[in-house]
């Protein structure tokens, strides 16, 4: 049996205003409320609302056989409440079907794991509380920001009660000859790992509307056929997991409705379920379905799902990114010492990984992706506004 595991990342950052040196000390807004509202409403119209409706219909149609999972960040939930409450309601309706798993992560979609373990644990706790409060859901699977993972993360997550599985990228340099279609254990065999099958996941997320791609257009028949072929290699009846992890904004936002992405999704589950040896599962069901001794995998260095490199270089490569994030985490310590909740909240909003992504100055293909997602003209501008915001935060701290 091959289980298709859909996991969608739902995230919106608080984008910074064009915050200049002369704005420092004037108590003016650091975040761009207008832009954030605009983006949220746009993405809700193009993606969240239509996709949620479609998936809700499919779940009902398939009577429990179609399942999906989400990681919804705290900053996204907050902005649903502010700018698109109907989006939050539609997610609640999905969770209420019982066919949706919610996945735990850092509330602010931050890189705290790499810089400040205590802050990381705080943000994970905040997110779990939020899921409990908004959806009445207790999270059992963990996914770090942008699938960033290394051995050390599994140690920390294992210490948090309740997490049994972690999602990450199926990086070739770690897997080598192994297949991402099986479930694994972390290096200390204490927690399950599910690895993204990036070839097929990216066919939907990145290549779906690319007319230069030889496989264009991607039809449901073709895609399900490929999946079917994946099962041929398995002779011992071991359960396989095809982990299709992607940004939720793939639907309608990155791949526009006109590309046919919604029609694809509408027909995909029924085509899959025509076959007895194919099905859907959510990450927390993995332990139950793993009918074999899971091999353990070691990730000595951090991996992620970003860019060709699948490492941290999208956020932490150049000097601007390093200086910005180090300055931020140094401030965290001082803010916590002072115990000012308002400043702590701002620091956390600034800890969202997107801010560092905007400062990425890598060129070629990936640079283009960064540019597409950035609200600023250049990485330098993004850096200047961020550093100014940190100066503002520090001035408020000294007050």
């Amino acid at each position: 049996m091959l289980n298709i595991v859909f996991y969608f990342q739902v995230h919106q950052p608080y984008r910074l205003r064009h915050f200049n040196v002369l704005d420092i000390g004037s108590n003016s807004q650091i975040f761009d409320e207008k832009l954030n509202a605009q983006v949220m409403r746009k993405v809700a119209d193009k993606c969240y609302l239509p996709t949620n409706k479609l998936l809700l219909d499919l779940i009902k149609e398939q009577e429990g056989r179609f399942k999906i999972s989400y990681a919804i960040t705290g900053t996204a939930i907050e902005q649903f409440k502010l700018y698109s409450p109907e989006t939050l309601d539609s997610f609640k309706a999905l969770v209420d079907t019982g066919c949706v798993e919610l996945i735990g992560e850092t509330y602010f979609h931050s890189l705290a794991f790499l810089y400040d373990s205590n802050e990381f644990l705080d943000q994970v706790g905040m997110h779990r509380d939020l899921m409990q409060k908004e959806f009445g859901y207790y999270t059992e699977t963990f996914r770090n920001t942008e699938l960033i993972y290394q051995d050390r993360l599994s140690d920390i997550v294992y210490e948090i009660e309740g997490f049994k599985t972690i999602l990450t990228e199926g990086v070739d340099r770690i897997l080598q000859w192994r297949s991402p279609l099986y479930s694994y254990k972390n290096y200390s065999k204490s927690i399950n790992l599910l690895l993204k099958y990036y070839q097929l996941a990216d066919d939907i997320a990145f290549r779906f509307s690319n007319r230069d791609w030889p496989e264009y257009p991607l039809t449901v028949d073709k895609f399900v056929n490929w999946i079917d072929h994946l099962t041929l290699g398995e002779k011992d009846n071991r359960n396989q997991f095809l982990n299709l992890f992607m940004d939720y904004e793939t639907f309608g936002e990155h791949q526009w409705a006109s590309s046919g992405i919604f029609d694809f999704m509408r027909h995909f589950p029924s085509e899959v379920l025509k076959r007895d040896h194919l099905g859907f599962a959510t990450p927390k069901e993995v332990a139950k379905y793993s009918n074999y001794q899971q091999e353990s995998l070691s990730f000595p260095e951090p991996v992620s799902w970003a860019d060709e490199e699948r490492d941290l270089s999208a956020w932490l490569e150049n000097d601007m990114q390093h200086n910005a994030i180090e300055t931020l985490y140094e401030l965290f310590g001082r803010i916590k010492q002072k115990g000012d909740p308002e400043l702590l909240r701002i620091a956390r909003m600034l800890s969202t990984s997107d801010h560092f992504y905007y400062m990425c100055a890598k060129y070629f293909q990936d640079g283009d992706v960064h540019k597409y997602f950035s609200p600023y003209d250049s990485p330098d501008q993004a850096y200047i506004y961020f550093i100014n915001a940190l100066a503002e935060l520090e001035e408020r701290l000294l007050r």
Partner: protein
Amino acid sequence: MKVLMFTWEFPPLISGGLGMACYGMVKALLAQGIKIDLVLPTKELVYFPLREESDVDTLPTVFFDPTLHTEYIQKRFTSLQERLEYIGITSRPESYFQLDEIKRHSFEVKREFIDTEITSIEEQELWNEVTTHLIGDEDLIRKVQEFTLRAERIAKTLQYDLIHAHDWLTYPSGMLARKISGKPLLVHIHATEFDRAGGPGDERVHKIEHAGMTYADKVIAVSKYTAQMIMSRYRIDTGKIRIVHNAFSLPERDLENPQRIFKGPVILFLGRITLQKGPDYFLDMAQRVLENHPEARFIMAGTGDMSRKMLRSSAAMKLKNRFLFTGFLNRHQVETVLQASDIYVLPSISEPFGISPLEAMAYGITSIISKQSGVAEVVHHAFKIDFWDIDLWVETISHLIENPEKCRKIGLEGMHEVQRIQWGEAAEKIRLLYSATLAEYIRQHQ
């Protein structure tokens, strides 16, 4: 006495110190009864007949084409800005620095005319310097060409006693006007190509600068520093060089209520972020001062060809959120950032004059200025340090941070000092020079 004046910058058409200096100088000259017909690189072919002090702000305008002028005077403008836009002074002029590639492009300021009218071999050589070097495809060179072509018509149409041209961009025009009218030419050196480039710079510009200064009857240098540069690098006849230090116009400022931005001490760099101004020295001193004074903030205000490099370097040096960039600042924003600063530094590699330290001092900010500057000759209540002596810069800044009372006191003394450096005195020198040059001219033509 009426002067035909060519300049590339004049408020609101301004990118740097040249425009501010011309404004202060012209205003003070008008106050002393000099009449000035001002020519700027405007889109429309116009000149500005300035007769009263207040004209520097209103810029009364005359179109050379009578039909256009009739249209212009019949037009109703709701604001000064709208009127100036109509004339074609909308944006800042490009900064006129470093011309890179030399591409051949024919330049013809009535070659035949010049060739037939040339009276001596020396004169022939000077014109050759201009005509063979004012070539190139760059936007700026094209603009200078066009400006020069217009000068012919201007020089023939207007009545004037003297010609006064500011910096190399207008030297070809000044030369042409002198050639046509036979009136004496004064060229004013605000900066040479050596200052701007922080090295040899563009050969074409040197040649034009040399030709302009040699052809002129008098050369005005903004400082001793510049005068020495002119003598040693351009070999200009010492007898015709005069030094007139720049002054500045006291800004309207609210000293009672300075708006601070930061609680800690603020050290300011304000100017184009380009090699000449020594921004990299500022970065180095920031790094070293911050080691002992992490409470300080360094602000780099302005833009320039080295902005990105400075930004990336400040990040690489891990200067955290202690080294900040403002980007381009308008007039009002400059005042705001000045009010928020404690120490002003000008680490220029070569600064013919440098008005902005005077302005900083007018705000009571303690200034530390490069010894390689003209402004160092006129102020006493400021620290003067060789631009390369980083140790001393660091020591001085640290000392001022550690002794805020002393810093304030020096700032106040500096403020009182610069209040006395007004354009009236400088304009008086220029007026006397005009008279002397004219007297000489009349004597020679009797």
